[in-house]
């Protein structure tokens, strides 16, 4: 389990997440793509912490910040989905052609 192997797995997760975020029509599936990318980022942070920092606790702190970012993007994403659904009754990206309300 070398650091290279861990980073390769994380790169695959990030690539898959980017594919999902770009290709999905539904807002919630787009958020899933973002989450999958952050999953890969989390794996990168923990892998680097475990394999190349002598176990400096600041690496774990960075992972906790990444987890906070995950929570923030999900919460704001779902709030935006709710707001858009209230206003336009749409749940796909094609339903949004303007940013005006």
């Amino acid at each position, binding site marked *: 389990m070398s*650091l290279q*192997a861990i*980073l*390769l797995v994380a*790169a*695959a*997760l*990030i*690539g*898959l*997440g980017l*594919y*999902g975020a*770009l*290709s*999905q*029509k*539904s807002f*919630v*599936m787009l958020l*899933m*793509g973002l*989450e*999958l990318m952050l*999953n890969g980022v*989390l*794996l990168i942070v*923990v892998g680097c*912490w*475990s*394999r*190349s*920092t*002598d*176990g400096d*606790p*600041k690496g*774990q*702190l960075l*992972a*906790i910040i990444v*987890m*906070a970012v995950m*929570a*923030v993007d*999900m*919460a*704001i994403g*779902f*709030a935006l*989905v709710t707001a858009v659904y*209230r*206003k*336009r*009754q749409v*749940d796909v*990206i*094609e339903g949004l*052609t303007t940013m*005006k309300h």
Partner: protein
Amino acid sequence: MVSGTDLAFWTLAAIAIVSGWRVFRTDSMVRSAFLLLLSFIAVGLIMLLLRAPYLGVATIFMMGVEMMVMALFMVMFMMNPAGLNPMNMVHQERFAIVAGVLAFAGLAAAVWLTDLPHHPLVAGRPVIRELGMELLGRSMLIFETAGVTLLATMIGTVVLSSRSGRFGPADAGSLPPTMTPGGMPAGRIPKKRSGGHGGHGGHAPSAASPTAGEPAHGHANDHPHQPPEHHA
């Protein structure tokens, strides 16, 4: 010389990647939320292998709750949450595949070409205790900043998703879909839309709004503070 740890790592990595791929390939959105949860659990278990027990368990717990919320949202908002019909809701798929493959190839090339430092975690180091001392010690300001960010997120979430707002009810003018076949689709109420087009001064209703009202009626419906809508 494949050790048990290596075997476990590659198994979990395969589970994480395959379930991450199946997320976008299953008919049911609720099922895809659970597949994403499976991917997160596999990554959390890899973190346990990397001797980050706190982070691994926290990831599994947090994502368990988060994916439950996601599944709830699926049932609330999305069409076809149970996957009873085959579904493939994608757009610009070729571009997305190219972007995803390029991202993976670029990151993989960076991994192979970089001379990564090798300073592995010293065995027996009390990592959870050190994390606690770091969080509530020298890095407390960073940790508290994350807390304040989460508070701001909570406020922003309530502001964005509440029904009442500064300009009146958030769902004013929106039209839920009818439950009968052949009924009106969801969207905006057409009368309001024709009023917006009347604000242009032109009498010709656009082709997209066949139910445009009389111009005078349309002007009476105009709100002076609302800009006219340019798009149907």
